[in-house]
């Protein structure tokens, strides 16, 4: 009975969506806001990556909300799973194979370096804070997979995460002390297409990269039975 009703619902939804999709042409100009960001974005913010200038400068408040959602999810997960009971059925711990362990020892510093490169050059090449943070978290997943007795220090990770969040909000609020609106670009713009350019965008993306990397590492630590 449940199957028949759900298949009927899916047919009705398909018909509705097909009627809507015939009015959205593929590949034509649809909005005007994108044109304004493309024409004036590089001159007003000084960043070569237009998506970065939209995420941090024009829509910076949405990024602040997203950081809050990540923080709430990490806190919720730590509250639900943070107190492990004693092991009722201890499984035999077998060590990982030699290939995984050797690969971890060779690749771990390079993965951290690559992740840091991605979020430092966020305003020049494709990339940014979220992608760099995810690559750093993948390096820590490799560390957890390779040996059973290597753990991260949860207190240090939480301190790094809190300090990065404070840097983000502090940089945004420092614009208020100079009489300009919240999250506006008050640092000098510098020369186009060099590393130290585009005002507050590198500072914010470095803070976001640290925060996202520390957050996902804390999530993995809580899921594998942290102590």
């Amino acid at each position: 009975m449940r199957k028949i009703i759900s298949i009927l619902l899916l047919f009705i939804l398909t018909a509705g969506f097909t009627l809507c999709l015939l009015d959205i042409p593929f590949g034509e100009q649809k909005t005007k806001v994108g044109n304004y960001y493309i024409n004036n974005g590089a001159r007003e913010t000084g960043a070569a990556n237009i998506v970065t200038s939209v995420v941090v400068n024009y829509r910076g408040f949405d990024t602040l909300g997203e950081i809050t959602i990540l923080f709430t999810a990490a806190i919720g997960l730590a509250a639900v799973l943070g107190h492990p009971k004693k092991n009722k059925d201890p499984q035999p711990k077998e060590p990982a194979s030699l290939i995984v362990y050797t690969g971890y020892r060779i690749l771990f510093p390079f993965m951290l370096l690559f992740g840091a490169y991605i979020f430092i050059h966020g305003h020049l090449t494709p990339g940014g804070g979220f992608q760099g943070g995810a690559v750093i978290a993948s390096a820590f997943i490799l560390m957890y997979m390779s040996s059973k007795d290597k753990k991260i220090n949860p207190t240090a990770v939480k301190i790094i995460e809190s300090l990065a969040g404070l840097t983000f909000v502090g940089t945004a609020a420092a614009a208020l002390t100079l009489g300009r609106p919240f999250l506006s670009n008050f640092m000098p713009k510098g020369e186009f297409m060099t590393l130290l350019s585009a005002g507050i965008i590198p500072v914010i993306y470095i803070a976001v990269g640290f925060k996202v990397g520390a957050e996902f590492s804390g999530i993995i630590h809580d899921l594998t039975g942290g102590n």
Partner: protein
Amino acid sequence: MDFLNNYIYYIGAFGLFFIGLYTMLIKKNLIKIIIGLTLLDSGIYLFFVAVGYLHKGTAPIISGHSPASEKMVDPVPQALILTAIVIGVSILALALSLAVKLYQHYHTLNIKNIKELKW
């Protein structure tokens, strides 16, 4: 065939959406339902970025090879989907932590057996 070439992205995106929705409605294992949620999210991301595409446009990054006078695709949907991907994975982590706690309490993940609400 011209219709297929123009609208193939939309068909793929909504195919993913409907497969995810079907999995969430029919299946009884809690982890299968969460897999359906992830499929649904992936379909929406593909649809959104496909709406902002322009014929003969390039990526919205100014570099030495593409000076600032070429036609670029819309950068606003890409910024919104970047936020949505990270939010999706954080919701997934929270849902899976609740599933682990449910298994520790009931020793089963079949949603027909997990009904002990105190009305």
